[in-house]
């Protein structure tokens, strides 16, 4: 049996792969970058003596994801669980995005995940076991000027995972969702941020530790829960004024 990690070649996905490997779990890794995946596979196999299979797949292309599912039914039937530490941002993602950009951003951050889970759920329901772990973003808490489609997709994903948790309360499928604040990955590297960054290594440990739990929705780093609450409690006309003040 294996654990499937979508978006494993870098950032949080890579750290999750190492955490699973440290716990002697076999892995199936998926990413757009085959070269990075192959090197990660070598490192994991050499250091941890586990079995790693890799697939190149672009989640921003829904057709490609659909074809992958059809071509790899046997592989997917053997997985214990699936994690989606995936996220795609584009430069100049604003309120006037092109159709192509909208499709790719929404596919990578929402549609393909949703579509993939729909298929995996059938397998897990039949097995009466399995786990699904999703990762949202604090950027989905409120509308914004930049990364507009990305944050919208992440908000939709959060909603979808809430539905997924509720729909699987009475069976053995474990669903977890983590809403991420600033994480110390190459995307945030060198940036001056208002709050400290969370360690992806620590997050990977938390994710692994919580795999057996049902219906988790957590913030990481934890203090983002208070910011999220504040955003939700404050009337929008006040939030709007605060944003204007900081801009």
């Amino acid at each position, binding site marked *: 049996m294996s654990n499937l990690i979508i978006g494993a*070649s*870098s*950032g949080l996905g*890579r750290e999750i792969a190492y955490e699973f490997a440290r716990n002697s779990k076999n892995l199936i890794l998926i990413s757009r*970058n085959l*070269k*990075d995946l192959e*090197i*990660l596979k*070598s*490192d994991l196999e*050499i*250091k941890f003596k586990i079995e790693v299979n890799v697939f190149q797949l672009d989640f921003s292309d829904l057709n490609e994801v659909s074809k992958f599912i059809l071509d790899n039914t046997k592989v997917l039937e053997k997985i214990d669980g699936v994690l989606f530490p995936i996220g795609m941002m584009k430069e100049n993602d604003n309120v006037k995005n092109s159709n192509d950009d909208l499709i790719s951003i929404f596919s990578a951050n929402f549609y393909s995940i949703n579509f993939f889970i729909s298929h995996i759920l059938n397998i897990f329901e039949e097995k009466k076991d399995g786990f699904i772990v999703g990762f949202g973003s604090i950027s989905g808490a409120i509308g914004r000027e930049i990364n507009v489609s990305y944050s919208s997709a992440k908000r939709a994903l959060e909603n979808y995972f809430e539905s997924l948790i509720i729909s699987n309360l009475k069976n053995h499928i474990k669903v977890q969702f983590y809403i991420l604040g600033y994480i110390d*990955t*190459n995307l945030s*590297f*060198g*940036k*001056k941020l208002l709050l400290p960054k969370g360690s992806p290594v620590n997050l990977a440990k938390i994710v692994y530790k919580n795999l057996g739990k049902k219906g988790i929705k957590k913030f990481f780093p934890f203090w983002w829960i208070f910011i999220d609450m504040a955003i939700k409690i404050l009337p929008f006309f006040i939030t709007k004024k605060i944003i204007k003040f900081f801009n």
Partner: protein
Amino acid sequence: MTKKKIYSLDKNYSADIFFKRPDKYKEIEIESSKFDNIITMGSCNSYTPASFRKNALSIQLTKFNRIIEFDKNQKLITVEAGIMLSDLFNFTLARGLWVPQIPGYPTITIGGAIASNSHGKSCGFHGTIKKQIKRIKIFHKLHGWLNLSNEENRDIFDLTIGGLGLTGSIVEVQLRLEELSGNNFVTKIIKTDSSSDAVKKINFDVKKETYCYSWNRSDSFKNFGKGFVFQNELNVSSNNKLTKNIKLNNSDINKNFIINFWNKYSVFFAQSVYQNYFKFFKSKQYEESFQKAIFPFIGKEFYFKLFGKKGFLESQIIVPFDKTEIFIDEVETIFKKHDPLITLYSLKNFKGEQKNLRFENDGICFTFDFVKNSKNLFFMNKLDKICEKYHLTPSIIKDSRLKLETIEKCYKDFNRFKEEINKFDNKRIYKSTLTDKLMI
């Protein structure tokens, strides 16, 4: 893209730089395509400004830290160049293998060690890291991905080892590993009465695999050269596989205290305590862990911090065996006259052939650490003149103060190296503050 202020370890140079830490191969290409001037950065532990330049992109490869291939029978390992020595050794030492020619701090990356042609304590026996390198893969903005070895792109391979990162980003490396018999060292301490005595005792048997270095007093002319020679020999009677991982101290080697604690009195005090500790409290022979013997600066990071915000200066000079006596005479003469404040004085054996800008030669390597002040700078200028006069080899990668004039006189290949680099990279994309100073 945001800018960051970066300092060399000796604190003599700083610059506002653009900083990227890619974690995908494609990102190396993308980030490199955005800038006219680039330099690769490992852990940024270099004494000199070798991995940054004002307004240029420093591309840090610490996320490229994986093992790509390992062949135990052939004793070959292929790694990404951003792997830290501690991570590499935690893997190889458990299999009874290692690379002996490594610098004394484990957070240094293998790419950084190659770009500076590092040496270890056993360089009199093992030579420099050049000997262990079988193949290198670099990325160059103009030339793309290139495989370098003695069989493929041989000239660029030669320019890359000890080439200060001027041929592009070193991304992958294949290394020949050496067997390590034993998992700790037996250290013998031999008392020395002078610098000449230390040279004699350190140069005792270069055919034997001994990790030999000296510690000598430098607090006064009267005490100059007195101290000990430490001979670390592998304890073959111990288990031949290292079971304990190399543990890093959380202390940031790059962060110094605000003020400088080193002065004539504190140096005298520290050196007296150190000497008397080994003289009266330590036995003449004792067992030492691998970590302590090979990475002596773990846990002693405060030594650098004590120099304060102004930092320090280090001079490392290889003196051929037949010139050591005259060199010591000259150094003692200027020491007596100028009374510099030297916090560390040490010797070790060296073996190699000087080529390009590589710090290599047959002889004895003299190391001096200085507090940064005008008196010491004057003394160091006098040392430069001695180097020029006797054609000695001063280290470019350790001494950030070293002048172009001295380098030109001491490195016979300097102009040829410069021409070759200009020929390979005619737009001179890969540059650092250090190489600007060398006008390369």
